[in-house]
């Protein structure tokens, strides 16, 4: 009986990827497979290249050399018109939430579906459902500035999953939150992960690694160092 090729269920594959900002080498020769449905932590100290790595997946940055394949598509060959459609397969969460300040909670989440041209009744229904799930249904009319950090991040998670993406990319999602809020955020992401989504969390918070099992990779000065066998995550 032949063993399945581990690349068969890879949603993202990196081959010898490097990223340079001027003289600084942010990522160096990274080769990595991210499999469908896995929970993956990218750890490492500040400036190790965690955020840059995540940005490569949604084309927030382009590689200097090497190749990134997302869902079988070579990212280097995507045209500008194809980029939005690729991004719809990712849900992105930032440490600073990145909510649109002049849109209320409902509108921030609904934007994802509006951008896809979904019918209004579907947008209304799904947005309400997701906000209820995120525990933000009572604050749908609130403006982002009137929310606490934890609430803003809950809205950001709701926005990330509203489009039912295949992959969630979370860059320090609990970095500016208290432990209780962090617990809620990880809970929301875990619930979405259970539905079969791939979740990739960049963090240098070791407490976070203990909250949810997952594969861990570690970056140091842009290099992928040996993965750490923490909390039973598969390697």
């Amino acid at each position, binding site marked *: 009986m032949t063993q399945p090729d581990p690349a068969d269920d890879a949603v993202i594959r990196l081959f010898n990827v490097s990223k340079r900002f001027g003289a600084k080498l942010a990522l160096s020769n990274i080769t990595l497979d991210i499999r469908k449905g896995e929970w993956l932590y990218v750890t490492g100290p500040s400036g190790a290249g965690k955020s840059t790595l995540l940005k490569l997946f*949604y084309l927030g940055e382009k590689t200097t050399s090497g190749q990134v394949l997302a869902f079988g598509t070579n990212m280097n060959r995507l045209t500008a018109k194809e980029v*939005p459609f*690729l991004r719809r397969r990712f849900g992105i969460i930032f440490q600073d939430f*990145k*909510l649109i300040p*002049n849109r209320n909670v409902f509108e921030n989440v609904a*934007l994802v579906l*509006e951008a*896809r*041209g979904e019918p209004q009744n579907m947008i209304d229904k799904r947005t309400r459902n997701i906000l209820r799930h995120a525990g933000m249904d009572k604050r749908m009319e609130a403006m982002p500035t009137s929310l606490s950090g934890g609430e803003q991040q809950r809205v950001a998670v709701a926005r990330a999953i509203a489009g039912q993406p295949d992959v969630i990319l979370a860059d320090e999602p609990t970095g500016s939150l208290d432990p209780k809020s962090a617990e809620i955020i990880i809970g929301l992401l875990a619930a979405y992960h259970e539905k079969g989504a791939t979740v990739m969390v960049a963090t240098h918070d070791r407490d976070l690694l203990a909250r949810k099992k997952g594969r861990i990779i570690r970056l140091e000065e842009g290099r992928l160092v040996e993965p750490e066998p923490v909390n039973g995550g598969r390697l």
Partner: protein
Amino acid sequence: MKRHMKRTLKDFTSHAFLHGITVVTIALTILIAGALLLVVENGESVISSWKNGVRIMVYLKGGAASADVEGTGHSLETMGGVAKVSFISRDEALTDLMESMEGQASLFEGLGENPLPDAYEVEVTPEAAEWERVQAMAAAMVKLPAVDEVEYGRSWLARVSRLLKMVELAGIALAGLFFIVALFIVYNTVRLALYSRRDEIEIMQLVGATGGFIKIPLYLAGVLEGAMGSILALFVLFGAYALFASGTGGGADAFELSFLSLGSMGGVFLYGIFVGWFGCFLSLREFMKEASS
């Protein structure tokens, strides 16, 4: 499109100050160009009314045979640029003269024989009422065998026509200049607005919004700003015109002012829309290039 329009209107209310500045900027530049257009249109209408009155008096030689008189009339009628030819006999001319100088009848006492010649009054078509053309027509008329003398006046018409042409040319040059100024200001205002919203645009891009989804409401906003700017400019221009017209008290008929024609107002409106759209197009093109680099 309904959804884009809704987003545009919502954006107008949430960024009222920035949109307001753009509308006022467009209105100011259109106001200047509109004022020039108003001057040129009124000048043209005055000149045109003057041109309608251009006449050439063709005096016939004394004792010309009636066949020659008739022949001259026929030649004048077939001449290019002639609208109407009326024969004025020497007796009619004298009667008219005496009537016009009523109260000074003593001047005509002892006149003896009527000194006035038979004449033709030639009305020139408005198209031919240019100084050079009238001059050429008069030169041709004086060559007719029965014609003694030709009289035509209004050489000042040529000077006014030339002056208006210069105003018109200056108007076109200034309109062009103001178009560039307006475009530059709109371009920078829209750019400023875009930069103030670059986070919002970046987020839209990250959630998978297409270029069209991001740009259409911005273009609609540009068009709306242009339309609002031109309407505002037309209102202000009309107010200034009404104030000026009432100040001049209507004046002589030849100088009666009128506001811009419907066609010109439509032109001003479309000009505003174009400035809004094109300014938006230029800044968006640059902004999106920077955003995607």
